[in-house]
């Protein structure tokens, strides 16, 4: 086994996991909401980026923000449908509705984009870097950079800005936030817009690593679930660390044992962590 190569693979994979999960981290941390259509929104992010390039001839650097705008619109639409359930914090119904929404997204995407796999080529994904016996692409570098930037930006906004303070007020006690004159609905819409934009960004940046299919998304939502729970629900740094750990674990487990069993193994780790540290890796009341 080439240890250096596995570390690189693990880090790239880990940053992908973290980036895919960040929308959920905020969703769960601020709004106490779940979104089981998350994986399909990731799929849509990748396909919209692909279509923007292949069909509309946009350059990749414009296709990414385009895809994020579509992601925001999908997020808004979902929150519009869910708003009453959100305000009631009816988690079971939200789970079912979002799961259904994911299937609808899958169906629509299959109708629009077809069921065959596509390759999302970008100016970075085709450029390889060789360094001794190590290998990666510029797209891999882009994934790590985008993930780091998004996490730092999120952490900064949450801790230092008025917007972040308002989000934390709503996260702790939405009823009390109302008494502070905060329009809690707007915050919920904002959170869903962020979720939509972030997961579309993840699809646009990570999609190029593998062929994309409209049937993908289920693995992504499962991994997101593991990352968010492992990281301690709602904790930004926790998710980042959990993503990296899971990435390294997956890379080494795949190299040493078998790539076929990484998901069950990841769940075994999750179960073990939850039993030993019920709050997740970065357990801290209130999260962040």
């Amino acid at each position, binding site marked *: 086994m080439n240890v250096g190569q596995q570390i690189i693979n693990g880090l790239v994979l880990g940053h992908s996991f973290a980036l895919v999960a960040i929308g959920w981290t905020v969703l769960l941390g601020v709004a106490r909401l779940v979104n089981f259509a998350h994986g399909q929104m990731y799929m849509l992010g990748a396909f919209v980026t692909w279509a923007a390039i292949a069909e509309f001839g946009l350059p990749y650097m414009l296709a990414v923000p385009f895809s994020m705008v579509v992601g925001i619109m999908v997020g808004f639409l979902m929150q519009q449908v869910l708003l009453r359930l959100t305000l009631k914090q009816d988690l079971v119904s939200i789970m079912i509705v979002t799961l259904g929404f994911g299937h609808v997204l899958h169906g629509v995407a299959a109708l629009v984009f077809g069921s065959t796999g596509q390759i999302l080529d970008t100016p970075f994904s085709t450029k390889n870097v060789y360094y001794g016996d190590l290998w990666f692409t510029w797209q891999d570098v882009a994934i790590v950079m985008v993930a780091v930037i998004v996490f730092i930006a999120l952490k900064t906004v949450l801790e230092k800005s*008025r917007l972040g303070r308002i989000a934390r007020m709503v996260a702790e006690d939405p*009823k*009390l936030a109302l008494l502070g004159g905060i329009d809690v609905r707007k915050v919920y819409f904002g959170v869903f817009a962020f979720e939509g934009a972030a997961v579309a960004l993840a699809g646009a940046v990570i999609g190029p690593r593998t062929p994309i299919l409209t049937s993908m998304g289920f693995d992504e939502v499962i991994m997101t679930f593991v990352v968010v729970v492992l990281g301690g629900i709602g904790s930004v740094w926790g998710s980042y660390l959990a993503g990296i750990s899971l990435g390294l674990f997956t890379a080494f487990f795949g190299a040493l044992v078998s790539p076929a069993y990484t998901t069950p193994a990841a769940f075994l780790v999750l179960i073990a962590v939850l039993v030993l540290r019920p709050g997740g890796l970065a357990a801290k009341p209130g999260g962040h």
Partner: protein
Amino acid sequence: MSPVLELADLSVRYGGNRVLDIGALSLGQGEVVGVVGANGAGKSTLVNAALGWSRGAAKVSGRIALCGRDISRMPVQKRVGEGLCLIPEGKLIFGTMTVEENLAEGEDEPGDGRRTYGVDDVYALFPRLKERRGHLGSQLSGGERQMLGIGRALRLAPLALLLDEPSIGLAPKLVVTVLETVRELCADGLSVLLVEQNVKAAIAVVDRMILLERGRIVLEGPAAEMKDNPRIAEAYLGAQKR
């Protein structure tokens, strides 16, 4: 001039239970009106209903006017924006945020001539909060929480303040401090609806007092008259038994 706060035919139901039925209640400018009554009489329900706010599923109907303007159709945050602020019973501050962050959200320029309170004004009123400005809300004592709750509401440039049992769990000396601060604020023109179990302390600072029983106003009058009323003595003794 119309009263600052006016409630008319206000009723509240929880499921099929009607727990509040108020014919009329008004609060003039600079006035402190005390609301007393036994546990479960509907005191919290009353102040919460004025904002249309509830931790549970309260159904409110009736007319609520702030400075003559009907606000009964506005969402809670809009009523707060208009200058009606509540310091609720129980959890009244953000425990995961520092004192400073708790006070950060506020109006420095509401623009319609309302008196504003900056963070420094709040610290001047409650020096204890300034000392503890870096501490988390969850690390504060009961009295400090009440001060922070009042400070948080003041930052929103209130016209009327609804205070739900600010003395609960406080040492007698602190009760006096908090209530006297409330009195001072009224000298500045603020109007206060003060829910209190501590009738003795309340009667010293209020202008008028209302006795609630099973969701209805059963007695109402100036503080001086209420002091000698046997039913108030009864409610006051009831409060002592807690």
